[in-house]
């Protein structure tokens, strides 16, 4: 079986660790070999959190530069920063709702222009799916469901060798009971939005 390499980048607190563990659980349900590594030492202090997930054959749990099949960015400038992980065929899914880092507030940097950012990613990769995950999460009923919107959009690409049904099943088992409905709705909204490429 071929290896599919997925990178998820996010800012601490955006819930990407839950998203990746749901994907892992779904792979387990689908009987697909899965491995993952995460760098989350300072996640809670507003730093960048990166997960690398590998589906299929192989042993490595790390993805080298230029070798991601799918890149999912929970924050637009972080998607751009992770572009070195991509190649001309990579499918990129990005949230369009920015969380400017504090360095911008203290005048040590300028937040990139969102239109230009998308143009750059589009030019250098296979495909870009951009959704305002914050807006869709609100529609689903909670701003905390950004992770599920992006998970839905990622599954819509068809690049992850796991069925959307198994992902939903994993959501049901991994998410607190009270939030399951909102999370499933967010997943569906993300999935649908990815079809059109925009929200």
């Amino acid at each position: 079986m071929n290896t599919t390499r997925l990178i998820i980048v996010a800012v601490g607190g955006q819930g990407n660790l839950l998203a990746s563990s749901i994907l892992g659980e779904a792979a387990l349900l689908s009987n697909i070999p899965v491995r993952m590594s995460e760098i989350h030492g300072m996640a809670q202090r507003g730093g960048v959190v990166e997960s690398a997930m590998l589906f299929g054959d192989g042993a490595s749990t790390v993805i080298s530069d230029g070798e991601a099949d799918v890149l999912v960015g929970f924050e637009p400038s972080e998607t751009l920063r992770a572009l070195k992980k991509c190649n001309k065929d990579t499918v990129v899914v990005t949230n369009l709702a920015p969380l400017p880092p504090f360095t911008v507030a203290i005048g040590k940097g300028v937040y990139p222009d969102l239109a230009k950012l998308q143009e750059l990613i589009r030019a250098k990769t296979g495909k870009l799916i951009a959704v305002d995950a914050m807006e869709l999460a609100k529609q689903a009923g909670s701003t905390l469901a950004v992770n599920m919107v992006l998970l839905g959009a990622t599954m819509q690409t068809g690049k992850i060798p796991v069925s959307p049904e198994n992902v939903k099943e994993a959501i049901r088992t991994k998410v607190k009971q009270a939030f399951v409905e909102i999370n499933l709705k967010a997943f569906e909204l993300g999935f649908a939005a990815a079809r059109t490429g925009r929200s």
Partner: protein
Amino acid sequence: MHKLLAGQSARRMFLLGNEAIARGAVEAGLAVGATYPGTPSSEISNALFEMSRESDLYFEYSANEKVALEVAAAAACSGLRSMAIMKHVGLNVAADPLLTLAYLGVKGGMVVVTADDPLMFSSQNEQDNRYYGKLAGIPVLEPSSVEEAKEMVRYAFDLSEKVGEPVLFRTTTRINHSTGVVTPGELLPVKTTGDFEKDPFRWVPIPAVARNLHVKLLKNLEEAKRLSETCGYNFTVGGGTWGIICNGVSYNYVSDGIKDLGIEDRVRILRIGFSHPLPEKLIKTFLAGCEKVLVVEEGEPYMEEAVKAFAQEEGLTIPIKGKAPDLLSRLYEFDPAMVRKAMAAYFGVSYTPAVLPDLSDIPEIPQRPPNLCAGCSHRASFYIVKKAAEGMQTIYPSDIGCYTLGILPPLEMADYLLCMGSSLGAGCGFSKSTDKKVISFIGDSTFFHSGIPGLINAIFNNHNMTLVILDNGTTAMTGHQPNPGVDMSTLNLSGYGRVSIEEVVRGVGAPFVTVIQPLKVKKSIEAVREALAFKGVSVVISRQICTLYAKALKLDSKRTFRISDRCKGHRNCIDELGCPAFFSKDGKVQIDAGLCAGCAVCAQICPENAIIPAKD
């Protein structure tokens, strides 16, 4: 029930490496565990501590790694299975007992986990702790994957009992923080009560005894070597004449790489999982069948040097390489492409690397360094000390914890750091070596860990310095583990004592002690000024619970602040405090209500009193 206590019949689990290690220890019938938390090892201890509350396991957060190792050593000498868990630099702290424990040996199986951190994701150095195995003369095991880690921990206990020595279980961050599919195994019963048989000529290494014990250690080491030769964790795959010797995660990169390069039938791999003592005969036999050999290991050329020595003894002149400018580095961690490239270059295989996107036209992306949380009491303490020290020439020795992040602008309150507790020792040195005012910062957990001897030194030698103890009631950096100053009843845990930092400081005779409440800015600045004016050792205890921890315990204030239209745009709040809840919009400072923790510190420093409680 804790998910890691599930029986053998439980279905396969998707586990973090650290959870797999904890599960392996529980499967092996671990009776006593002790730790001082440190990334990337902390989740092993978190899991064991949780499990200890619903099983026969005894687990403790010790004051430091040396104590943790001694606790585990005594348990193992009493015939129980024990484990001491720490990050790589923690083993420096525990090295003193470890090196003599090797002389004494153990009865029950004892495993010392050292979690190394290549690339220093959350550490001050990337030392390679395999050398501790060599230095102490004890076995070292190194897993390559999460699944293997669980099995190998079980084996480590058996090995320790067979050899009569503690076993060093060495991981790297990419094992600890990788996740994989693990099949639960049988849970061995826990032997909870041991017996210590008095035998001073075995357990008390006065010189005459130690001389005999060293002989015994070398014998045990011989036995370990014999076991290493036939251990299933040292194995060969493939059958070509190009040899690769590798360990840990490098083995994964090698296995994937030879497939990518299509050289599976040319390469023979020797995977070393039992890396001290190295299986000399096995390696020599392996070398004899190779025309050239590449050693792939992160960190230092630990295996490479040994392999070259073995080749020399055999009179083999085949090329053996590893660390070289055009091959593999001693720096940082490896990745699949790096290892693939080195293999292709060394064996002369053509290969087209992935084409990286051209990033030359990407605008500069603003950095996103980790930052003290919104409302973190350390930020307030730093601001207070900075204001109190205005006009003074200062040096700020720092220590290990969240507050090390005070290094960043706009606070810039960390000037020198070596290791846990160094703010005190180095502070003493600076006070004698310069004319500047020395103000050292240390957290509560770090103070208990190794700050106290430095304070005693400062008092005894009458150094002129101020120590600020940032007491936020938890070990915040590694995920809020308890420390001796924590009131364990807030965690619904009974049967614990509690040590008061103030009483310790007064008890060792600090001539000036003051306690501040850092969220009261003005009053605190006055108190710190007095402390700074004192000649000799002055101690400021800045007491305020960690904001993130308070949130987790639901003890947070729930209020937030906003900037009213009285704001005249001085930007003191953003430029001097730098709370991450601030942002600028259309040139105006605003507060993100979702981030604001309601500490009210910014409200106290705004010259226009423009920052006010938000009413919803």
